[in-house]
């Protein structure tokens, strides 16, 4: 028996209170008048004795109440043998079906192991089958039907997820707490070292849990395509470079020398190039393919490495590319800032992929343009925006378009920022002479449009339009707290507001190194039309289907086999989707954008190194305090489970409290109110 909070036992000292009340406290009563005490004698001893006898039950109950209260706070527990609790235990059969179990016949062996465990179950034994991947999937309830358990094991299919023993331990802990039964967990797995969580504490098991490992297969050397770097969009096929990393995961006890491997670049199932590379044992090799002659539209790319090994599934790496023409950007300028378009065009053209072509129009004709043909629109401090243009822009943005607004002297006189409807307070000025200028003090560096801008370091802002952000998010502020960059989501699209101009009059940004990255990143972000997400993903990643406030159109996801993965309801409501296997997923977001996603397994699964025996022994011993009690305590003592006593104590306390009330009522009620007295008087 032990106490979780033994210091509360000091409360037992409160038992002194009833002792004082009952035995030590002078009995204070109003004296009763009597004509003469001639014939009375002092018999205090008999009187006290009588009082003791009279209230001994009340005293005992009160003392017991205090003791129980102190015990309750001290939270006592006893260690009980889990077997003695009911003599039952639950067999948990965990089958690893992660990507690495695709090696050789590992999964079928694991399933065979699980089936043999089920075959060994006695009638009445309870068991549960779970599948271990990135998440733990309970395939059955806890049941004693071997047939159902067998079916569950046979239904386990190879997966592409990365195993996580941390998730397994968490599930077992939860199961143990909910069932209050001892668990015997059998893990049929290749026991990959990379499946261990970062912190060993995450592997902790409950005291009543026994963990048994069934190692499947042996560590073997494995060569894998670890990574492929390819552009998501191609504008000029000749300028494209595809880089692949080939890694050899060597088994510790195998003496493998460096090997020659053929690495092929495949596009739409057509081998474009093949190169031979020498991969050192336990090392990496880089392969670079120049030019990628992809047709217009989406293409399914793949880098393959030849040579059979234990895990052929990781000998290829998928990637998706989209070939498009450079997209057009509409630059609306009224000619007041001639250098602005010069600087902006130069920055766009100098960005890596030459993905944009800029068209400049005057504001009076901009409203007549077919805006949906443009990747985004830039309003360069045009002051008053005509209602035609504003309506067209709103329609364009709500449908998924993007607008970049620069505010300058022409906008200072306007009451509101066009389109985003934010109030313009005033123009914040700083003189050019001396050091009177403003710098950027705060920046949301995590925002896609603000990456690589290096906090606009060294840029001097002489004028910025002070906008009070009510509905917009501020991405950067000047040191006088004037917002510099704001963003507002509108419908499916978005609007960025730059509260200064793009020339070097109100600031010297175009002359600094952060100008090109700012234009490039913001352009890429604005042209993304919806959630900016990579097209090359790892299994179990989430794909965003729609913006948080968008409920308009339906989204659609097709799996590598061409099956629709979303139900009708999910298509209109789901905000994201998890890709759970390797291959190419076709995605149509709610904004109407089509994307081809290449999904590949986590390459940590390719490292087949096994967890050392010592680590396994430590894991096995985590829950049952074997490490602490190990050397001294007997085996059965370690397996005992703390059994809290507070519910019973609480029940007992309630009973005692009720009894105390009854007894106190009987003893301490004034004589006039006492029914017994009244009965006697009546008699």
């Amino acid at each position: 028996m032990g106490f979780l909070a033994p210091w509360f036992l000091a409360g037992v000292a409160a038992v002194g209170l009833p002792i004082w009340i009952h035995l030590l406290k002078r009995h204070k009563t109003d004296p009763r008048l009597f004509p003469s005490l001639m014939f009375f004698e002092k018999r205090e001893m008999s009187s006290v004795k009588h009082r003791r006898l009279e209230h001994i039950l009340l005293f005992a109950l009160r003392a017991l109440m205090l003791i129980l209260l102190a015990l309750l706070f001290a939270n006592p527990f006893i260690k009980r043998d889990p077997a003695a609790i009911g003599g039952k235990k639950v067999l948990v059969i965990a089958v690893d079906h992660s990507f690495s179990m695709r090696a050789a016949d590992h999964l079928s062996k694991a399933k065979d192991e699980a089936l043999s465990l089920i075959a060994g179950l006695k009638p009445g034994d309870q068991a549960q089958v779970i599948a271990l991947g990135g998440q733990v999937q309970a395939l059955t309830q806890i049941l004693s039907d071997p047939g159902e358990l067998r079916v569950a094991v046979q239904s386990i299919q190879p997966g592409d997820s990365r195993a996580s023993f941390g998730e397994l331990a968490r599930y077992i802990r939860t199961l143990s707490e909910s069932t209050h039964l001892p668990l015997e967990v059998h893990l049929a797995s290749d026991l990959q070292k990379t499946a261990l969580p970062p912190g060993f504490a995450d592997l902790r098991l409950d005291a009543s849990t026994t963990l048994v490992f069934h190692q499947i297969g042996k560590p073997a050397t494995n060569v894998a395509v670890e990574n492929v770097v390819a552009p998501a969009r191609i504008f000029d096929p000749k300028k494209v470079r595809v880089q692949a990393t080939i890694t050899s995961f060597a088994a510790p006890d195998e003496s493998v020398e460096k090997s020659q491997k053929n690495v092929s670049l495949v596009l739409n199932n057509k081998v474009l190039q093949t190169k031979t590379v020498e991969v050192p044992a336990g090392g990496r090799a880089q392969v670079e393919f120049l030019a990628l002659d992809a047709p217009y539209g989406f293409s399914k790319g793949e880098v393959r490495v030849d040579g059979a090994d234990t895990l052929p599934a990781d000998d290829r790496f998928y990637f998706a590319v989209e070939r498009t023409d450079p997209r057009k950007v509409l630059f609306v300028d009224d000619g007041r800032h001639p250098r602005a378009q010069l600087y902006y065009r130069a920055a766009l053209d100098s960005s890596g992929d030459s993905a944009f072509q800029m068209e400049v129009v005057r504001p009076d004709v901009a409203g007549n343009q077919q805006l949906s043909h443009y990747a985004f629109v830039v309003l360069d401090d045009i002051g008053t925006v005509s209602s035609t243009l504003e309506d067209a822009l709103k329609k364009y943005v709500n449908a998924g378009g993007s607008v970049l607004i620069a505010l300058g002297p022409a906008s200072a006189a306007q009451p509101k920022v066009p389109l985003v409807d934010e109030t313009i307070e005033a123009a914040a000025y700083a003189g050019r002479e001396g050091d009177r200028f403003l710098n950027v003090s705060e920046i949301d560096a995590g925002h896609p449009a603000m990456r690589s801008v290096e906090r606009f370091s060294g840029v001097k802002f002489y004028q910025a339009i002070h906008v009070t952000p009510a509905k917009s998010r501020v991405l950067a502020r000047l040191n006088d707290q004037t917002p510099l960059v704001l963003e507002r989501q509108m419908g499916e699209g978005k609007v960025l507001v730059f509260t200064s101009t793009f020339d070097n009059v109100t600031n010297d940004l175009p002359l600094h190194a952060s100008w090109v990255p700012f234009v490039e990143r913001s352009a890429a972000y604005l042209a993304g039309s919806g959630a900016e997400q990579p097209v090359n993903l790892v299994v179990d990643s989430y794909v965003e289907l729609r913006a948080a406030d968008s409920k308009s159109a339906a989204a659609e996801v097709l799996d590598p086999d061409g099956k629709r993965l979303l139900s009708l309801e999910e298509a209109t409501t789901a905000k994201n989707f998890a890709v759970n296997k390797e291959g190419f997923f076709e995605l149509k977001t709610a904004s109407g954008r089509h994307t081809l996603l290449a999904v590949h397994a986590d390459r940590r699964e390719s490292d087949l190194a096994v967890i050392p025996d010592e680590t396994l022994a430590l894991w096995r011993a985590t829950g049952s305090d074997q490490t602490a009690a190990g050397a001294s305590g007997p085996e059965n003592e370690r397996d005992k489970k703390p059994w809290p006593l507070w519910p019973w104590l609480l029940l007992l306390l309630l009973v005692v409290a009720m009894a105390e009330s009854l007894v106190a009522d009987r003893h301490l009620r004034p004589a006039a109110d006492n029914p017994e007295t009244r009965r006697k008087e009546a008699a």
Partner: protein
Amino acid sequence: MLQRFLDPKILGGISGLDLVAKTVVDGFIAGLHRSPDFGFSQEFAEYRAYSPGDDLRHVDWNVYARTEKMFLKRYRGETNCQVTILLDMSRSMKFGSHATEKIEYGRFLAACLAYLAHGQRDAAGIVIFDDDVRNFVPPSTRQGQLARILHAIESAKIGTRTDFAHPFRHVLEFHRRRGIVAAISDFWESPEKIIKTVAPLRFRGTELVLFHLLDPEELRPKLKHPVLLEDLETGDTLEVSPDYVAHEYPAKIQAHIEDIKTRAQAAGIDYFQIDTSRPLDDALREYLAIRKGKL
């Protein structure tokens, strides 16, 4: 006519002592065939069994005719006697476990005795005392004497402690003639001291009657729990247990009563113990019956 007894509670509800006395005594006398010979002064006749040698002239032949037994009818002198009532007003008399406290009962009793004496045309007087004489109405047959006595009784206030010595010395001083002295008290004093104090009166030929008033709670106290008792006169407190009260105290109080009774008899003093829960007229009737028999 059926005898009716007056509950002390009813007496307590009657406002004037004269009315109380009248109610008690008149009703009581009516119940006992009102007779001019009946009373406790020395003027009424006395019957005594005939013994050889007695004068036959005094034989009551009427009685002989009815009963065939010979009784002598003795005539007493017609002189009025002095009746002095001593009423204890000490604090211990201010006790009562029921509607009528001992002091009230004592007042009623004193008033009744005074009324009786007045009816007999005896010279009645009263001494109100506690540890000293608080009021004194000398015995007299003057007109208005009963009213004076009743007023003295009514206006008497509770005093402090009881001390028989001083009041009885006072009575000794003025009580020159033979007469009757009726002392009404709860006699919370040692029997020896009581008798020793009152006995000198007897030596002068005065008849002495002790009315010992005791509340039922004094005779048989009932305690359920240990209690702290406070002496009404001294203020002393004592914690007593129900055990003691149930078993030892009754024996002691009974021994006390017996002691007084024995010593009183030995000294030729009449002693009559009255339980204050008892109807007053019943108690008086019994006392007078005893006294008649004795006389």
